[in-house]
């Protein structure tokens, strides 16, 4: 075992290092690829699918959650929370969603909205 300390990197170490250098950028490519412009948003309430929305039909939507009503604004290919009966307004601060896979959620009210793209990266969503 001592002979392995003669060098900083053995041949095996190089192999692991190079494999890592190849792996990490691929992880970014696999998990960070944008799904492009989404056409449709899905709304979940308390873990159950509640509505599917056309992102290009302008509308304001009241979503009855567990605590109260969350307001969604939809239009121009985007959706956002405009009001929600929660403390931190995290969902509102998330802002406009437009990219496929984008998610905003009001966890206290158990309401979430996600943009679906032509090529959705996920088959299902659970809370």
């Amino acid at each position, binding site marked *: *075992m*001592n002979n*392995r*300390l003669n*060098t*900083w*990197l*053995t*041949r*095996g*170490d190089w*192999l*692991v*290092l190079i494999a*890592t250098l190849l*792996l*990490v950028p691929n*992880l*970014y490519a*696999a*998990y*960070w690829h944008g799904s492009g412009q989404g056409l449709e948003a899905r709304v979940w309430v308390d873990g159950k699918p509640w509505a599917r929305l056309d992102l290009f039909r302008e509308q304001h939507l009241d979503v009855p959650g567990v605590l109260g009503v969350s307001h969604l604004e939809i239009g121009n290919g985007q959706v956002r929370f405009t009001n929600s009966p929660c403390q931190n307004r995290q969902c509102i601060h998330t802002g406009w969603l437009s990219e496929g*896979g984008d*998610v905003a959620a009001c966890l206290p009210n158990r309401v979430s909205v*996600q943009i679906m793209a032509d090529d959705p*990266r*996920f088959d299902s*969503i*659970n*809370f």
Partner: protein
Amino acid sequence: MTQLIQTTRDDHLIAWFTALAITIHIAESALPSPLPGVKPGLANVVTLIVLCRYGWRMAVWVALLRVLIGSVLLGTFLSPTFFLSLSGALASVAALGLGWAVSRAVPGWALGPLGFGLLAALAHMTGQFWAAYALFIPHPALLHLFPPLMTLAAVLGIVSGVLTRSVLARLNSSPSTSID
């Protein structure tokens, strides 16, 4: 009437190294973490030292006992933290086992401390992340965290490998600590 349990030299080594690893584990838990799930993994250095000096079987004992006893002492036993930690440790010892088997089968491609450290850190993060995703937060948005977490794991794995290597070099140069 006293009943004596026969302990072997290996048992004593495991106990001492586990105690050392737990100490580091607890000290490390006091450090503030920038991101949940990201720790320097200094306790893993002990696992790597045991691996390089005494082999994989002993390293498994030290790694798993450290997670178990460390969680009891920190009060996180059977909590989500514990299961994440355990998943990480299991994935990590599995990866080290693979690396160990390859190192023994093909000595020309044997891994050193850096290779093992990197392997352990990446496997630990992978196990922990997918356990978190499967058991606690099965939300697609969580997946965005995977690449940066793995990047950090790779960096920290190399750091732990370098630390392991320097500790091993010192252990080897002082005759009083060499047991075999």
